[in-house]
């Protein structure tokens, strides 16, 4: 059986709407024969079948919009035909949620007390049994009824992320119990944003804007962010940059402070693997590749192109890669794979003069380095006042995995390397 997915039609495209199914369930189809039509913005596209066989199931109806890479249909043999909308994964747990007990809106204490008495047939019991001990412990501590929490895990089980999101949302008071919405839907403001007749101009969000909004809400909700800020004397780096600038330009690369910071950050990530990692449920996933994302501001948003295997590049290679990716990001000429698989991100709020930033983590990474403005300041060196270019660097880190001490060691390493940048690294 072959899954047919919503194709990625462009780097900034997150979703597509199915406008027409050219084939019906039961129709046989050849590989590359037109199967369905999708619409994104003002572009319509005809999508060919990825395989030959029989269209066995249509999972997404005409007019529905789904995320890129969602399965929209399956192709198999005639024996596997299934009617749409009855896929097994969406039935049992959802159906049980509308129990009378749930609609009585019990106080959290009542619900927790009652939970032992419910029969094993209810969704609540199913969820309780299937959830991990950690999730059950969190639920108990916060007196949360797991039946009230929408589960996004396997067979609808409640994951740690679901329950933490639920607790953070104020126990989902505003959320109707029967919805199947994911735990990370945008928060709805309490009152109307504007009244009829008010002097406003309403513009729909672009796909990129929506994607950024979703991603940032998800990040704020997923990671408990903690920040450390270090002051770094950029005297040596500025001197080296001035000295080597012409040489690099001759080699076709603009030597920027960002390149120096990237080089040192990469060395620090090698030294402290916990910062180059992700969390997967209860597992810590250490990333062996260092794929460095560099945030680039665009006219109406931002994008984070990624330098793959950044640790394999020297300062010249990094300078070239940064220039190239930033230019192509601004002219919208990045390939989709060039914004994926990042393991750590550097962002530069200092461009606009900010002393330092407090950036949100680019999920599923666990840390982000913010670079503040580089300005001349009076600094004390050997009890004398000197004028030096100074930069503030921030590490925003996910306290689930990276503790303050880790962040401190990481930033101290970065500071030390920048202040004593070895010419041999160039």
């Amino acid at each position, binding site marked *: 059986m072959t899954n047919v997915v919503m194709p990625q039609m462009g*780097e900034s495209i997150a979703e597509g709407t199915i406008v027409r199914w050219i084939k019906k369930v039961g129709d046989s189809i050849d590989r590359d024969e037109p199967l369905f039509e999708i619409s994104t913005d003002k572009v319509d596209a005809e999508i060919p079948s990825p395989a030959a066989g029989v269209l066995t199931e249509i999972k997404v109806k005409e007019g529905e919009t789904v995320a890129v890479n969602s399965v929209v249909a399956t192709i198999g043999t005639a024996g596997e035909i299934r009617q749409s909308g009855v896929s097994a994964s969406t039935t049992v747990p959802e159906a049980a949620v509308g129990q009378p007990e749930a609609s009585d809106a019990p106080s959290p204490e009542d619900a927790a007390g009652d939970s032992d008495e419910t029969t094993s047939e209810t969704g609540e019991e199913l969820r309780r049994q299937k959830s991990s001990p950690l999730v059950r412990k969190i639920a108990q501590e916060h007196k949360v009824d797991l039946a009230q929490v929408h589960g996004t895990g396997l067979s609808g089980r409640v994951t740690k992320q679901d329950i933490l999101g639920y607790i953070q949302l104020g126990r989902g008071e505003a959320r109707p119990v029967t919805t199947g919405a994911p735990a990370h839907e945008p928060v709805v403001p309490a009152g109307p944003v504007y009244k009829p007749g008010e002097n406003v101009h309403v513009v729909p969000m672009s796909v990129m804007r929506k994607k950024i909004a979703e991603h940032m809400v998800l990040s704020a909700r997923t990671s408990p962010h903690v920040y450390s800020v270090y002051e770094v004397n950029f005297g040596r780096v500025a001197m080296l940059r001035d000295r080597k600038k012409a040489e690099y330009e001759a080699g076709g690369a603009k030597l920027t402070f960002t390149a120096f910071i990237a080089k040192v950050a990469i060395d620090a990530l090698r030294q402290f693997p916990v910062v180059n990692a992700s969390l997967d449920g209860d597992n810590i996933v250490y990333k062996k590749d260092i794929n460095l994302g560099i945030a680039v501001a665009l006219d109406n948003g931002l994008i984070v192109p990624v330098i793959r295997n950044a640790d394999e590049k020297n300062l010249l290679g990094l300078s070239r890669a940064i220039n190239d990716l930033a230019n192509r990001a601004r002219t919208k000429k990045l390939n989709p794979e060039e914004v994926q698989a990042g393991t750590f991100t550097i962002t530069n709020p200092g461009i606009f003069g900010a002393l330092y930033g407090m950036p949100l983590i680019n999920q599923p990474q666990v840390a982000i380095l913010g670079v503040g403005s580089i300005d001349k300041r009076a600094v004390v060196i050997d009890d004398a006042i000197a004028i030096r270019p100074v930069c503030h660097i921030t590490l925003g880190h996910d306290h689930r995995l990276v503790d303050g001490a880790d962040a401190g060691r990481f930033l101290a390493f970065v500071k030390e390397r920048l202040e004593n940048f070895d010419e041999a690294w160039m």
Partner: protein
Amino acid sequence: MTRLIEVQRLGIVSYSDALELQRQLVELRKSGEIPDQLLLLEHPPVITLGVKTRNDRSHVVATPETLQEEGVEVFESGRGGDVTYHGPGQLVGYPIMDLRPDRCDVHRYVRDLEEMVIRVAASFGVTAARLPGLTGAWVGSDKLAAIGVRIARWVTSHGFALNVSTNLAHFNLIIPCGITDKGVTSLERLTGRNLGMDEVADVTAREFAAMFDRSFATPSAPLVPQAHL
């Protein structure tokens, strides 16, 4: 090596003939029998509905009687987008182009078309721009050029429609693209000059080739007998 593009100046072509021609050229392009094509033409007055509106004509505000009096056809097309109007004085461009291997991004394709039209306008001294969230090229809040695109296996069809000396009153027959709070404009209105369609088509062909990094090929024999058109 820059790829070749054949520019075909077709004059006035009915919407249905142009659809059929595009369909044939898309197949020929998919199978690699022809190089990339840019069709430049004008349509007789016609209102076209995109796939979003093929079952909903609420954005056509004129009555069938008015449409008949004005000699305006209504047509369902396979392109994206909402309702639009085509008519004499509007330069229509239909690129039949394989976006593979390096341009497989539909947003980028649409933005490139917009940029190309903006550059055409600039060469006539008109500063057009994009409006965030809306497709096309705009001067203030008036639409100068509409864009609606279809892609099949990365071969493009449909394209852009630039108002050169279009009868703008005909746009009152519809709500263009379903957007109610915006107007339409033309190069002629903006420059106060009488612009020849050939002159604008020349500039468009040049800017198109530059934008998409193509060089001109001389069309071989006409691909579809002219009599058919």
